[in-house]
């Protein structure tokens, strides 16, 4: 029998205990992997926000606790637009309000004239008309959630808007929401002359590092946002989620480790005489160690695989909520599953350490006499 099979057979001795322990581990791994998927996907969404409309970078208010709190002025927009390397600077105002069953329906206020410079591929209809105040462009997912088609009307903030176009950018955040005339959004948000973000398209050949550095130097109150690492300058949400993810991973390792230790200690205690026999027939301490650690690692790997499958099921299941679909398009990258695996192995090693040492230190003769 291969050594691996011997380890596997040992786990099958107490099937219920093995099953319950693996299940306990898998729940921890589910949390770690699911949170990893959600965090990664939200980062991807956040990165998409920074490059909405095909912008090279976005500009927000430095130090904002949340992106939606970012407040920029027309003067700042004009200053940015005045840089010779800037081809277009487009100010947008973000708003959130209930629409249908989605309590956080994203509304992007944008000058209709700017839409020709803001890459918004229309699936049907047309862009917002210049001067129109009651027209709306719906993202494909937003239209689907609201059950609206071209020519229908949408109620937002006690106003009625006519759907004049439906677009699809591939950005889950944009596609789940709508675009409206900037002046209308500024009016119902009572933010006249204010923006949330400025999207910048630079002229071809521009050194973006140099340009963003100059903008930030001249305007310390502005944060230029090109990558997800810049995102923390205007929104601590992602950083908080990263920290929570790390904390939960440690917690999963600790709690899982206690569970595995309990199982492995019981397994070693029950098999004390057997370990004595193995030592008596010449098994080295290292092989006993390999067997105990092997059992623990195999147990945790089973938990990691089951946990990862549950995490995929869970992250697909939460998409039934429209609000989640507006912000989240789950991305299953190898990193999140590797993290689950690493947590599983860490749990296995932590949990097996004490029982393995105990098994290795058994005196063969005392173990054989053990009843």
């Amino acid at each position, binding site marked *: *029998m*291969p*050594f691996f099979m*011997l380890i596997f*057979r*040992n786990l*099958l*001795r107490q099937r219920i205990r093995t099953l319950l322990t693996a299940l306990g581990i898998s729940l921890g791994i589910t949390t770690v992997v699911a949170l990893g998927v959600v965090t990664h996907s939200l980062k991807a969404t956040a990165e998409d926000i920074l490059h909405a409309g095909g912008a090279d970078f976005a500009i927000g208010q430095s130090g904002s606790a949340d992106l939606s709190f970012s407040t920029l002025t027309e003067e700042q927009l004009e200053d940015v637009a005045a840089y010779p390397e800037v081809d277009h600077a487009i100010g947008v105002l973000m708003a959130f309000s209930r629409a249908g069953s989605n309590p956080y329906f994203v509304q992007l206020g944008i000058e209709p004239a700017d839409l020709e410079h803001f890459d918004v591929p229309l699936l049907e209809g047309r862009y917002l008309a210049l001067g129109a105040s009651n027209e709306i462009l719906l993202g494909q997912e937003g239209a689907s959630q609201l059950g609206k088609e071209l020519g229908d009307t949408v109620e937002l903030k006690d106003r009625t808007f006519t759907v004049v176009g439906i677009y699809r950018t591939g950005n889950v955040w944009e596609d789940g929401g709508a675009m409206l005339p900037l002046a209308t959004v500024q009016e119902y948000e009572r933010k006249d002359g204010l923006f949330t973000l400025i999207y910048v398209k630079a002229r071809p050949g521009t050194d973006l590092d140099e340009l963003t550095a100059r903008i930030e130097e001249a305007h310390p109150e502005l944060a230029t946002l090109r990558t997800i690492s810049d995102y923390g300058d205007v929104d601590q949400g992602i950083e908080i989620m990263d920290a929570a993810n790390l904390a939960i991973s440690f917690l999963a390792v600790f709690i899982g480790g206690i569970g595995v230790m309990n199982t492995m200690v019981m397994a070693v205690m029950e098999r004390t005489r*057997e370990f004595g*026999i*193995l*030592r*008596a*027939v*010449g*098994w*080295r*301490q290292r*092989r006993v160690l390999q067997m105990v650690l092997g059992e623990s690692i195999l147990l945790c790997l089973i938990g990691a695989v089951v946990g990862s499958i549950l995490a995929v099921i869970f992250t697909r299941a939460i998409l039934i909520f429209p609000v989640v679909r507006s912000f989240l398009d789950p991305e299953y990258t190898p990193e999140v599953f590797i993290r689950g695996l690493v947590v599983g192995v860490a749990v296995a090693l932590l949990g097996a350490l004490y029982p393995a040492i105990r098994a290795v230190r058994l*005196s*063969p*003769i005392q173990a*054989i006499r053990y009843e």
Partner: protein
Amino acid sequence: MNRNRIVIDIQDVVKTYEEGRIHALNGATLQIREGEFVAITGPSGCGKSTLIHLIAALDRPDSGRIAVNGVDLARMGDLSRYRAREVGLVFQLHNLLPTLSAAANVQVPMYEAELSFWDRRAKAQRLLEAVGLGDRASTPPTKLSGGERQRVAIALALANDPPLLLADEPTGNLDSKAGEMVLDLLRSIQRERGVTLVLVTHDLRIAGSAERIVRMLDGRVVDAGVTSTEAGP
């Protein structure tokens, strides 16, 4: 095989338990030659099992010296290797793993012998056939009779072809017929393989089948006996 060569040399061995309150061995001295079949007898508590455990390096003496093939066990770095390669052990209560088949049990010591999976399997089958259990290879110990279990234990003890076979009351838990069968098997293995067989028993009838009978009392060897060759015609 040199039947005059001393393979086990036990000199003045002392072993106590419970912080010196129980004296299991109290200056035991004994020599055993290569290929000999020695029976160690004595009343319960005389130290015969302790002596065999010390020879098997399952435990260490408090004082005195045990040398196997001229090497002091106390100076031996890797006792696991010694137990795996030099010694085969058969206990009164068979030491088989209940969840494994007979063949898988016989393979257990072979994991340390760096044999391939196929070699381990073939050798285990050969050993089981040698003890008359070739057709019970896939049967777990729980479904074997006491005598069959002890024969599997003997096959397990021979897994790594040890030159030294130590049996501690191997028939103690068997009826007389099964006990006789196990004893015959041990005797034939000793003769055919030329292994040195040290058998601990309190049963003088079983001891009588050995080439030499060693008598112990109160932790000492009181009569080292003589082998048939030493006794002369």
